């Protein structure tokens, strides 16, 4: 493995790195890394500050060495821990936002719990007050509407996906 290959790595799974920060400056560090990521070409899909863990923040990225170099120049960032951590280890911090508010009619979802787990379905109706959604499974012979709780599904394709993309491009 030589360092001569400078090809940009795209569409690889992210890794989660742990950054040691000055205690009490976790959020400032996250903001500084955020603005740095905006100015540089380093891809950092997310930065996470948990109230339980003082003096540490997490960030999601691809290339450990680039992150290590970057944080050297970020105030309040001390260093980076060796190795990355699996998402499972921080999953308990990540309380999903109200599921129903994020789902719209026409979205394609994957069932992540219950008897239809693993199957894909299309959202046909949303009940915000009960946090329930009605879906039709793609694989069923007869499209029977079934009602599930919002947290039992995960959006895999949004109806307005194309629109969101063009909005993002405009912002850059």
């Amino acid at each position: 493995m030589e360092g001569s290959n400078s090809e940009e790595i795209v569409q690889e799974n992210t890794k989660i790195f742990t950054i040691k920060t000055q205690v009490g400056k976790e959020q400032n560090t996250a903001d500084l890394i955020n603005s740095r990521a905006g100015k540089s070409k380093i891809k950092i899909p997310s930065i996470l500050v948990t109230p339980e863990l003082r003096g540490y923040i997490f960030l999601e990225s691809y290339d450990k060495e680039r992150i290590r170099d970057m944080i050297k120049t970020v105030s309040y960032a001390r260093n980076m821990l060796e190795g990355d951590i699996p998402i499972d280890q921080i999953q308990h911090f990540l309380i999903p936002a109200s599921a129903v508010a994020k789902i719209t009619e026409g979205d394609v979802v994957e069932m992540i719990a219950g008897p239809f787990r693993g199957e894909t379905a299309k959202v046909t109706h949303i009940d915000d007050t009960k946090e329930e959604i009605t879906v039709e499974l793609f694989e069923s012979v007869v499209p029977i509407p079934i009602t599930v709780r919002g947290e039992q599904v995960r959006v895999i394709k949004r109806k307005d996906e194309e629109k969101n993309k063009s909005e993002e491009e405009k912002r850059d």
Partner: protein
Amino acid sequence: MKIVRACKTCHKLTESDVCPNCSLPTSKRWRGYVIIRNPENSQVAKAMNITKPGKYALKVM
């Protein structure tokens, strides 16, 4: 200094009483801090059900 609030529903941080994302009420009691830059490529965004870039709270009371 303005108080930062978090949407009780989607957790987005805002200075407004009403969330700019979902028009639902916000709260000034929240904890944790997440910056989502690229939701499509983020495992954290997926775990939290976040689909739009922005700053979010982990927990809203």
